[in-house]
């Protein structure tokens, strides 16, 4: 038994314990915090399973944005859940039967880590052996994400954009007049040290996001991760210095335009290759040398993804936070 497998067993055990804790806890605030721990653990698991890009995404999404959105919802809806659960036993029976059937199903699964399992034989060998010659990037995940499965990623970007529109249309575009009342007292004004340290930390976070964006071809990273990190820096600014200050720096209507612009950038890269006589999103049409074309294409497409993800995350946070401010009078 290798040391990796041992760590795998321990981390998965922690995950189960944490999930049980989330299920048992009556306090939703505690549940959200345990969910944060759950996400930290799953990221460690992804690192152990060699999925560094996935761990990167989980790191920036799970612990940061997801916790922030859950917490801002909780301040609007209340901290405790009603203990009267109607169908506890029925639920347990259903879950038990489904679980046993699924566990029975695992006996047919290939052995964990088997290099000759059906999953490993179909497409992966082609990607691993040929992607460097065809795309020219060391990070296979980026090659597959942006080039081989570029159409799929385009769809995912559109889904994120649509979700952003959905949140905006559910919770309203404008924040109305109540922000004027609240702009006098900045939140967290009593935490002086926090404000200073945040001021020091925000520029490195932004620069690091740019590094993740443009280094994603060579190491773990890419548009999705960079977008979330960039948004996290702006969210930190908005939380520490107040929503109105942040709105003055980053105009919300500009953010909304940017979220559409990212998708458009992605789509127009596809159209350009279309017009040059190749297939949609076939980047080799972008330059004389097909490899250079792939580089340009991946750079532009990742940039589009990054812009859309940043803009959607920021506008979703702004929408939730302005609701919270309206509800609670705007100051802490």
């Amino acid at each position, binding site marked *: 038994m290798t040391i990796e497998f041992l760590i795998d067993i321990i981390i998965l055990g922690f995950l189960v314990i944490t999930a049980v804790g989330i299920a048992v806890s009556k306090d939703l605030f505690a549940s959200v915090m345990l969910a944060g721990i759950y996400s930290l653990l799953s990221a460690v698991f992804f690192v152990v399973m060699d999925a560094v890009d996935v761990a990167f995404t989980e790191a920036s999404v799970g612990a940061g944005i997801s916790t922030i959105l859950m917490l801002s919802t909780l301040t609007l809806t209340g901290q405790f859940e009603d203990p009267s659960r109607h169908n506890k036993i029925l639920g347990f029976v259903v879950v038990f039967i489904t679980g046993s059937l699924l566990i029975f199903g695992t006996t047919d699964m290939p052995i964990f880590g088997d290099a000759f399992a059906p999953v490993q034989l179909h497409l992966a060998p082609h990607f691993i052996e040929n992607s460097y010659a065809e795309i020219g990037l060391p990070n296979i995940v980026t090659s597959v994400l942006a080039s081989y499965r570029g159409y799929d990623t385009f769809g995912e970007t559109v889904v994120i954009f649509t979700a952003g529109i959905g949140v905006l249309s559910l919770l309203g575009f404008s924040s109305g007049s109540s922000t004027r009342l609240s702009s006098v007292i900045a939140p967290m004004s009593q935490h002086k*040290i*926090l404000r200073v*340290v945040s001021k*020091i930390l925000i520029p*490195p976070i932004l620069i690091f996001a740019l590094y993740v964006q443009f280094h994603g071809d060579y190491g773990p990273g890419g548009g999705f991760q960079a977008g979330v990190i960039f948004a996290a820096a702006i969210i930190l600014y908005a939380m520490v210095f107040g929503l109105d200050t942040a709105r003055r720096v980053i105009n919300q209507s500009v953010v909304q335009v940017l979220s559409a612009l990212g998708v458009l950038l992605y789509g127009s890269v596809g159209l350009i290759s279309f017009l040059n006589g190749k297939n949609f999103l076939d980047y080799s049409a972008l330059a004389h040398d097909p490899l250079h074309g792939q580089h340009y294409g991946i750079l532009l497409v990742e940039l589009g993804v990054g812009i859309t993800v940043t803009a959607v995350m920021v506008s979703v946070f702004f929408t939730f936070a302005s609701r919270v401010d309206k509800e609670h009078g705007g100051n802490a």
Partner: protein
Amino acid sequence: MIIDIISWFCLLVGGFLCISGAVGIFRFPDFFTRMHAASVTDSLGSGLIILGLVLQSSEWIVVSKLIFILLFIFLTSPTSSHALAKAALHSGLRPWTKPSASRDDK
């Protein structure tokens, strides 16, 4: 060889400090004492572990990334502890005193 021994020493002491801090967070009687146990050992423990890793790495990029991690931990960890303690004090949580001592401080 000497560097190896120093880095192993750093890793071991760092690991020990992590465990002792965690025992502190588990065993101490109230929030403020737990926070003291956590933050004091956390800084030194993570510092020593990162130092041990720095001594083991050969590429400069790895070393600089490790130093960045150390810098960020040293910036953020005390700050969040401070903010947390302040918020707890504001919410009315009072530091634990020995049960026999006078209870007249609110």
